[in-house]
């Protein structure tokens, strides 16, 4: 991670909450991207839960996005369950993208078809 444009907000965010696993400097924490996609994988694991979402962009190009959450320990206290969704589910995800441009990011929230909002915090 050599080119990190938003180091100051990242530092400010970190000073409030100590880190358990790693910093957020690899993500553009000032940028929220919202997209609709189909869940292809969901891992209810430590140190992070992960979801893979197949997202088709405006040009019709499909890519699988890897989105990292916090731990199941924290998510379960925000209303998540290991059964919150499953591969094939259509979801709306909001995330902070990787600064290196690869299809990955830190999840902000997921909106399920039912309207249920699962926040990553």
């Amino acid at each position: 991670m050599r080119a990190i444009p938003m180091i100051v907000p990242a530092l400010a965010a970190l000073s409030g909450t100590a880190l358990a696993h790693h910093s957020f400097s690899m993500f553009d924490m000032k940028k929220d991207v919202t997209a609709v996609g189909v869940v292809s994988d969901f891992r209810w694991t430590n140190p992070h839960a992960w979801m893979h979402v197949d997202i088709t962009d405006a040009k019709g190009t499909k890519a699988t996005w890897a989105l990292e959450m916090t731990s199941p320990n924290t998510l379960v206290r925000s209303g998540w369950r290991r059964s919150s969704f499953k591969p094939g589910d259509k979801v709306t995800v909001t995330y902070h993208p990787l600064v290196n441009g690869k299809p990955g990011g830190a999840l902000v929230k997921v909106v399920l078809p039912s309207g249920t909002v699962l926040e990553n915090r």
Partner: protein
Amino acid sequence: MRRASAWTGAALPLACLFAAPVSAQEQNAAADLPETVWPASAPAVDFGALQALPDWRGLWAPQPRLAPRPESPRLLGKYKALYDEIQTLIASRDPEALLKVERRASACEPPGMPGIMTQPYNIEFLFTPGRVTMIQEAYMQVRRIFTDGRPLPDDPDQTYNGFSIGHWEGDTLVVTTTGLRDGGVMGRWGITHSDKMTLTERIRLDPADKDLLVVENSFEDPIALAAPWHSTYYFKRQRHLDQLEFICAQNDRNPINENGDVEFLDAAP
């Protein structure tokens, strides 16, 4: 043999047949192991004494925003140099600053004392006769604080959480910890200590709020600090939760590469 075993019985005749003559001065190092039984493990036990201790049950969630900003540490030598370097990097807004302060072998490597107290996960305390045990939910880390009168070791190994003894002063648990690793972090942004650091914690419930736990730290370090350095941590009680399992090696997709950078693996192992 202090510790007889089936192996000993089976192997001894063979050893007599094939082994070279043994010098009279030779002695198995295991013969020098200490055999002291401290009160925390002694056959005689008084569970009733626990009744006099304060109620610290439940989980304790860290409250970093309640903590006052600590004074600037008066660091010495290489510890000051590292601190100054990181402060300069932060002031320059160099992205390397963040990497510098978190450079570790693995993101799953625990922080050690006192970092175990400041991870963004809850802690809990267990009281047994002669001992207080603290469990940090993140990575399921354990601190053992012996309150049975044993002394600190003269020559401790340097470990992540060190060796801790404690005693009760009223409802305050006073803990002394030594045997921590050189270069361990005692505060944010490059505040590190030597392996000669002694940490004293005074842990108590806030008299005005029995659901608020206060930990007052005093760091003394003849190598890294010109004067004692202090910090305070706060925790709020949560009675409705239990700790959950946390195995950091289960799916660690953030390895740290040879440059010290945290990676992001986009595929599940």
